[in-house]
C-alpha cells in the first residue's frame, strides 16, 4: 500500500456472535482512507458503520480480510488514533484545561511543550477563556468542541468521529459542523466521520462512502467537490444534486 494511505480495509468480513444467533455485520468490505482526506460514512441505521471504526481502532478484529492502519496493525496504531464519541464524556470534576490534557496524561506524554501546544489549541479555537471553567459551566456545543480539542491534543494521525453531533440541538449542530470542518482542514488532519445525516456528510467531507444494509459493504463512493466552509456548502448549487444522489442510494436499501 502507498504511503498516502492512512487506513485500509481489504475484503473484511465481520461476524457478531450472540448466544442466540450470529450476525453477518460486514461482508466483502474494501475501504481506503488517504492521508489528509476527510471521509464520511453514511448508511442505513444498524448497518455496521460504527463497527468499521471499531475495526480501525482494533476493538474488533475481522473474521476474514485485513485491516491496516498507519502501516501497522490496528492494535499497534492505537495510540496514534484519535476518537471522538457521540457524547463529550468530559470529566466533570476537571477543568476544561485538565480535561484537554487527559489524553497526554494517559499516554505519559505530558511535557511542558506538549502542554503548551494543547493549551494553544484551546486559545486558537475560542475556548481559551474557559480554561479554568468546569464542563457544567459550558454549553453543549462548547463541551463537544472541548472534547474535540481533547482528542486533538493527543496529536493523532487519524481522527475517527462517531456521530459527534447527534446529541446536539439543530443550531449548535450546524455551527459546530462548520467549526469542526475548518479545524480539521486547517490542521491537515485525516478524518473519518460516521453519521446518519446526509447533509452533514456532504457539508463536512471530501468524500462520502455509502454503505449498504447488513451485511455492510461499500455501495458507492461519492467525491464532494464543493467550495467553501461547511455552512456555505449547504447553499451551493451542487448540494441538492449530491443529496439526491446519496439519498437514492440509501433509499434502495
Amino acid at each position, binding site marked *: 500500500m502507498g504511503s498516502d494511505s492512512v487506513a485500509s480495509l481489504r475484503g473484511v468480513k465481520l461476524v457478531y456472535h450472540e448466544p442466540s444467533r450470529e450476525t453477518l455485520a460486514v461482508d466483502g468490505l474494501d475501504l481506503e482512507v488517504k492521508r489528509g482526506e476527510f471521509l464520511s460514512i453514511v448508511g442505513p441505521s444498524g448497518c455496521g458503520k460504527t463497527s468499521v471504526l471499531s475495526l480501525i*481502532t482494533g*476493538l474488533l478484529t475481522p473474521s476474514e480480510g485485513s485491516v491496516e492502519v498507519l502501516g501497522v496493525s490496528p492494535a499497534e496504531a*492505537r*495510540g496514534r488514533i*484519535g*476518537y471522538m*464519541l457521540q*457524547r463529550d*464524556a468530559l*470529566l*466533570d*470534576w*476537571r*477543568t476544561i484545561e485538565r480535561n484537554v490534557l*487527559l*489524553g497526554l*496524561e*494517559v*499516554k505519559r506524554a505530558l511535557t511542558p511543550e506538549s502542554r503548551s501546544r494543547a493549551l494553544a489549541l484551546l486559545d486558537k479555537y475560542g475556548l481559551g477563556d474557559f480554561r479554568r471553567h*468546569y464542563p457544567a459551566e459550558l454549553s453543549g456545543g462548547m463541551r463537544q468542541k472541548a472534547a474535540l480539542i481533547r482528542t486533538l491534543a*493527543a496529536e493523532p494521525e487519524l481522527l475517527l468521529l462517531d456521530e459527534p453531533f447527534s446529541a446536539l440541538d439543530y443550531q449548535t449542530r450546524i455551527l459546530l459542523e462548520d467549526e469542526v470542518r475548518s479545524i480539521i482542514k486547517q490542521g491537515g488532519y485525516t478524518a473519518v466521520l460516521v453519521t446518519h445525516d446526509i447533509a452533514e456528510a456532504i457539508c463536512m467531507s471530501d468524500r462520502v462512502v455509502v454503505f449498504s444494509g447488513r451485511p455492510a459493504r461499500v455501495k458507492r463512493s461519492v467525491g464532494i467537490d464543493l467550495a467553501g466552509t461547511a455552512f456555505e456548502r449547504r447553499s451551493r448549487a451542487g448540494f441538492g444534486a449530491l443529496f439526491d444522489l446519496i439519498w437514492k442510494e440509501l433509499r434502495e436499501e
Partner: protein
Amino acid sequence: MSREHMEYLKKLKRGRRLTAAVRILLLALLLGLWEASGRLGLADPFIVSSPSRVVSTALRLYESHDLFPHILTTFYETVVGFVSGTAIGVAAAVLLWFSPFLRRVLDPYLVVLNALPKIALGPILIVWVGAGPGAIIVMALLVSTVVTVMSVLSGFTEQGREREELMRTLGASRLQTFMKAVLPASVPTIMSALKISVGMSWVGVIVGEYLVSKRGLGYLIVYGGQVFKLDLVMASIVILCVLAAIMYYAVAAFEKRIDKRFGRE
C-alpha cells in the same frame, strides 16, 4: 440588584426561617405532649417515661460516672465497625471492578449475603470471636460491609460506563481508567454509601450489644427493659439519637470537603 430579585431573596429567607421555626416548634410540641401526658395522668410515666425523667436519669448516670463509659463503649465499637467495614467494602468493590470474572462468580453469593439478616449470625460470631466487644465490632462490620460493596460496586459500573469508553479511546490502561475516571466519578456514590453504612453500623452495634455486652447503650436499653426501667431505656435511646446524628453529620461534612476537592460545589 433589582427590586424583584431582592423580593425573591427575602422570600427565600423567610421560607427557610419558617421551616426552622416549625421544626423547633414540632419538637417542643412533642416533648410538651410527652411531659404533659404523664403529669395529667393520661399515661403512666412508669411505662412511657417523660422528658424530665429522661433528663434526671441521664444526670444520675453522669453522677455515678456510668454515662460516659457506656457512651464511649458504643461509640468506639461503632466507629471501628464503620471504618473497617467501609474500608473492607470499598476495597472489595475495587477488586470486583477490576475482575469482571470474579464479579460474575461472586454475584449470587453477594446477593444472598445481602438478603441474609446478618443478625442471624450473632451466635456464631459470639462462639468464634468471643462474647465481648470483638463480636459486636464484627457484627457492625458485617452489616456495613455488605451494603458498601453492593452500592459502591454499582456506582463504579454505572457511573463509569461512558467514561470507561472514553478512556479506552484514549488508550488508557485499566488502572489509569480506574484512577482517573471511574473512582473520581464514583465519589458521590461512595459518599452516599458511607451515609448508609454509618446507619448500618449503629444497627450492628446495638444488636451486638443486645446479644453479648455488659456495657454500652445497647446494653443499657436491654437491661432497662428487663428490669422495667423505661426511664433508662428512653434516656439511652435519646442519647443514641444524638450520637447517631452527630456521626451522620460528621460524614456529611466529610462529603462536602471531598466534593470541594473534586470541584463539585
